[in-house]
């Protein structure tokens, strides 16, 4: 286990956006994490915490301000040769939040799914192309006939399946799922999460699963990273985070999860956490190792205080 080679390594990633000459938004401010092949890493945090920005930096939609992103040992944070670029674009895919907005409404679903194949010339003849599209549609629980329909003819859950099919057809090593279930209904969410889990077992893809819904993240992730204000405040396996949350922000997030249980729910008061009042400065904290893969961002005194309480 210890000798596993990470698929994706993010080291000290910083992503700043210049608002004006005086004002810079530090969306991501020094984040480190790794993803191993075939596992799911869940990134959680409130809106504005920088979780989507990380996903977009990893897939090279943004150019990182500082830090390194290594994919399969290759640095992908700087400029790449066109050959490297090509290779990367087949191995890393993204699933977006809004399944209606991310599918071209004027193209048939078959065309949308096969677009990646067309660009990278990954088939010998039309028959093979059609076969590949039909296979992938079946894999995500749709019928091959659906290839001739347009996105608007599908329901939300089906559209998200098309989005997944489009990502999977390239046979990627890593899929970045950016809030891919937030726009769906509860019962459909469960269907999509189960589908993603099944596909992972079958194909061995790794997921970077970005979401704000901790209860769903718990189901799908092997390891979780908690983001707040562009800092990774706590990371560890799902059990470590849920059984022994150390950082007060993680604790407040966990306490805010609504439970389908009226008796406990009525008396539950969510733990509030205010960055300013808590007196925690993320800039001075450093990554403190707790156990296994469990890390927390804290100064020595803070760590002593938080661990002493529990």
């Amino acid at each position: 286990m210890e000798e596993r080679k990470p698929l994706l390594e993010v080291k000290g990633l910083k992503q700043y956006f210049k608002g004006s000459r005086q004002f810079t938004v530090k969306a991501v401010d020094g984040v480190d994490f790794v993803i191993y092949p075939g596992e799911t890493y869940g990134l959680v945090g409130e809106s504005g915490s920088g979780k989507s920005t990380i996903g977009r930096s990893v897939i090279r939609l943004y150019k990182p301000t500082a830090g390194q992103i290594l994919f399969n040992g290759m640095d992908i944070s700087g400029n790449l040769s066109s050959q490297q670029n090509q290779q990367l674009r087949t191995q890393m895919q993204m699933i977006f939040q809004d399944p209606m907005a991310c599918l071209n409404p004027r193209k048939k679903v078959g065309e949308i799914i096969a677009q990646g194949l067309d660009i990278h010339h990954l088939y010998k003849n039309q028959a093979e192309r059609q076969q590949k599209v039909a296979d992938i549609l079946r894999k995500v629980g749709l019928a091959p006939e659906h290839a001739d329909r347009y996105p608007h003819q599908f329901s939300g859950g089906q559209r998200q399946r098309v989005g997944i099919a489009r990502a999977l057809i390239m046979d990627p090593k890593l899929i970045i799922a950016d809030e891919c279930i937030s726009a769906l209904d509860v019962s459909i969410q469960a269907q999509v999460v189960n589908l993603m889990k099944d596909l992972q077992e079958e194909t061995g893809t790794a997921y970077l699963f970005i979401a704000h819904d901790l209860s769903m993240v718990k189901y799908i992730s092997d390891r979780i990273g908690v983001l707040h204000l562009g800092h990774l405040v706590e990371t560890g396996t799902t059990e470590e985070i849920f059984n022994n949350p150390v950082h007060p922000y993680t604790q407040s997030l966990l306490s805010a999860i609504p439970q389908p249980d009226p008796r406990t729910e009525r008396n539950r008061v969510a733990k509030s956490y205010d960055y300013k009042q808590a007196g925690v400065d993320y800039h001075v904290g450093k990554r403190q190792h707790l156990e296994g893969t469990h890390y927390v961002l804290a100064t020595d005194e803070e760590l002593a205080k938080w661990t002493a309480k529990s």
Partner: protein
Amino acid sequence: MESANREHVLSIRDLSITFKTGAGPVNAIRGVNIDLYKGETLAVVGESGSGKSVTFKAAMGILASNSVVNSGSITYTYHHNDGSPATVDLLKMKTKDIRRHINGKRIAMIFQDPMTSLDPTMPIGKQIMEGMIWHYKTPKKEAWAKAVRLLEEVGIDEPEKRMRQYPHQLSGGMRQRVVIAIALACDPDLLICDEPTTALDVTIQAKILELIKRVQAERGISVIYITHDLGVVAKVADFVNVMYAGKIVETGTIDEIFYDPRHPYTWGLLSAMPDLDTDDARLYTIPGSPPNLLHPVPGDAFAPRNSYALNIDERMEPPMFKVSDTHYAATWLLDERAPKVEMPKELRARIRRMMKEAN
């Protein structure tokens, strides 16, 4: 319960609504009955497309122009300022009268996305005052003072300064607070919240729900929540209506719905909700998707997705079977001739665990 002295606020009877679309008529609401009493909280749960929003849009008189109300009534009971009660059928009122006497003044609505329900070109103070000035002809100074008080009440600091700010200058949670302040501006006695927290983060969601709860307790108003999130329902509701394909399939008190659900759809909804204590590798899902109401639905609309479906489900629509005085469910499984069917055992185990924890 003290059902004798409960006062009706809203009662929807036999409501049926059809939308005329290019593809043909869509029968979105197929006979809905809902009762709401004073000071109580009602939650309507269902997937998107089940008709939960449409039902209450009908009550507000803001249905889309291609809709036709086939039958039914929505009676709303309120008190005039002098205390004399009045009962009206909202479906028979003219739009102009609803706007003048009901909307905002007596029934206020909070929508899902605060960015689209606020006017981006108007300072929020003006938006809060607008209703008061229009409905009650409140003098501007008085309206301003009340708006500041309302902003304080919903937990916005520096209200004087915020009054002059525009929606884009506020965060999502703050905007939703402003929307609540606007809804409360004319002292309504019924608040309809249509997915009030879906667009918000969990931490902020909890705060907004606590806010609505507090306001409700202070003012003694009735609240209707329209949501698909059972976690929200568990936190706030007294009574729950589960809606599926334009019909209420189960109704009961919150404890009855969560601890003793009878309809297979409710079982599915409850099981699909991830629970932090279970370690199942897979989530339970309801197979398939809701029916297309463009075509008439024979029998029970849920039958094709229901693993417990009986033969009769395909032919005849189940009536509401009575479980207790407050608990009704529309499923043939409750008929005395039906085979004995238990809820899925994972759900049973979870409910047992919840009961234990609560005690």
